[in-house]
């Protein structure tokens, strides 16, 4: 029958008229990212970093630059290297996360942001001072210890370097059992 096709088409139109829109108005509202989201602005804990440069070695593009000098000697925690330069050129970074995967001391984490646009290219190089000052909201990517805690970088609070390691700090009772009191 002539006109039946038009009616059929219009039923689809009316069906969609009642539907809630799937799109969102971006700058006003944002889709929440998963805690595992590999985002910009790396989270770096200087206290955990030994300057071993595994991340720089494993980066497929070689965009991490690390310069260290021998730091002071600490009898309890061992000697360590002090970090002079820790530059990440996120202008060339592809956020594959291999640096985070390589870090043996849980010092480097992916960030959780995605809106770090800059006007100049040189601003995209994150210097060590900015990494030190940046808010510590690590992504749980490749860090099962954070996932087990149910940490969400978008809603959770900032984590200190003691809370992000893969090893738990032993409790006082534990220590008493294993070590004789002095």
């Amino acid at each position, binding site marked *: 029958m002539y006109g039946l096709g038009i009616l059929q088409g219009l039923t689809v139109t009316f069906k969609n008229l009642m539907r809630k829109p799937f799109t969102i108005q971006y700058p006003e509202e944002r889709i929440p990212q998963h805690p595992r989201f*590999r985002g910009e602005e790396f989270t770096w804990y200087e206290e955990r970093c030994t300057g071993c440069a595994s991340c720089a070695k494993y980066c497929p593009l070689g965009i991490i630059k690390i310069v260290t000098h021998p730091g002071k000697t600490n009898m309890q925690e061992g000697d360590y290297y002090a970090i002079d330069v820790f530059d990440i050129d996120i202008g060339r970074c592809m956020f594959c996360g291999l640096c985070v995967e390589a870090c043996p001391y849980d010092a480097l984490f992916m960030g959780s942001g995605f809106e770090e646009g800059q006007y100049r290219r040189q601003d995209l190089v994150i210097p060590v001072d900015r990494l030190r000052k940046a808010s510590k909201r690590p992504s749980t990517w490749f860090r099962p210890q954070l996932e087990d805690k149910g940490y969400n970088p978008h809603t959770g609070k900032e984590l200190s370097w003691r809370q992000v390691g893969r090893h738990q700090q032993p409790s006082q009772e534990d220590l008493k059992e294993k070590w004789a009191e002095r």
Partner: protein
Amino acid sequence: MTLKTEPVTINIGPQHPSTHGVFRMRVTFDGEVVVDVEPVLGYLHRGSEKLAEERTYTQVVTLTDRLDYVASMSNNLAYVLTVEKLAGIKPPDRAMYLRVIAAELMRIASHLVFTGFWLNDLGALATPLMYCFREREKILDLFEMLCGARITLSYMRPGGVFQDAPEDFWPALHRFLEEMPNYIDEYEGLITGNEIVLVRAKNVGILSAEKAVNSSISGPILRASGVEWDLRKADPYEIYDRVKFNIPFGGVGDNFDRYFVRVQEMRESLKIIEQCVEQVEPGPVRSEVPFLVRPPKGEAYGRVEAPKGELGFYLVSDGGIAPYRCKIRSPSFINLTILRDILVGWKLADMIVTFGTIDINMGEVDR
């Protein structure tokens, strides 16, 4: 009195709204009929094969994401399988299931992109594209849970996958598996029986089975021509021999068949994912492989059935930490060889539609 006419050569691309990516065709028309087509490639050449020679085996995974950027998981899978073949690594069972689930989700996403853009070529502008991208978005959300990224995934590693799926992935996957058949029904209701689509696509751009086999075409285009050839059945890799599924194939090899085979493949992919979710068992997801894989001297060719056809990696190892040679057999590039055969003799409007059904991806053609 007869008018004196002469053929006109027109450039379509590299920046043209109806070509896919930076693809350029030098087309000679006689009036409105295509007389000759000459593809011009290389605008997106990044030298992925050469770059792979100076990266370690694990780092090359990130390069494979950028080959076919709407189906990164399949590229990861093909590369990782080849490295495992070369180095003799056996991934754990759970990792293989996770990889197959991811690759099949990617196949659905890729076919959704095809459906949307093909209808865009047909003149249905942005509406069907938005429908298809709505579901693709759900798949990308699943990938974000799985590996933290949406397009450039880098999910797989030689010897497994980098990390197990998070807990909230499985309920989300179940929800997707329940919703998706309804959405495919919706497309089929809108497109498959649509009179305009049928008139434009039926018996247009016919590719015979013989021609397709002779030009070493693979993937949905080959199956649409009536050849029942799917690497998942013909040369099962990973766990495809443990799941049951059918290979959809067409009869005529026209544009409509090429579309319809892809829609049916989406349904088959859903079936495969459902079976995988039932069969998967807890366990490790990554076997003990050092970051610097050092395969013994030798060579290996690994191939998978990517959404666009047979994707193969040929790696030669000289015993070092980086491949000595990496050759990529990309389906989009090989599938382009039939371009002249299926376009010549059709009109300008059909040319765009037929070209759309080859479903090329320039990232893969130029590598």
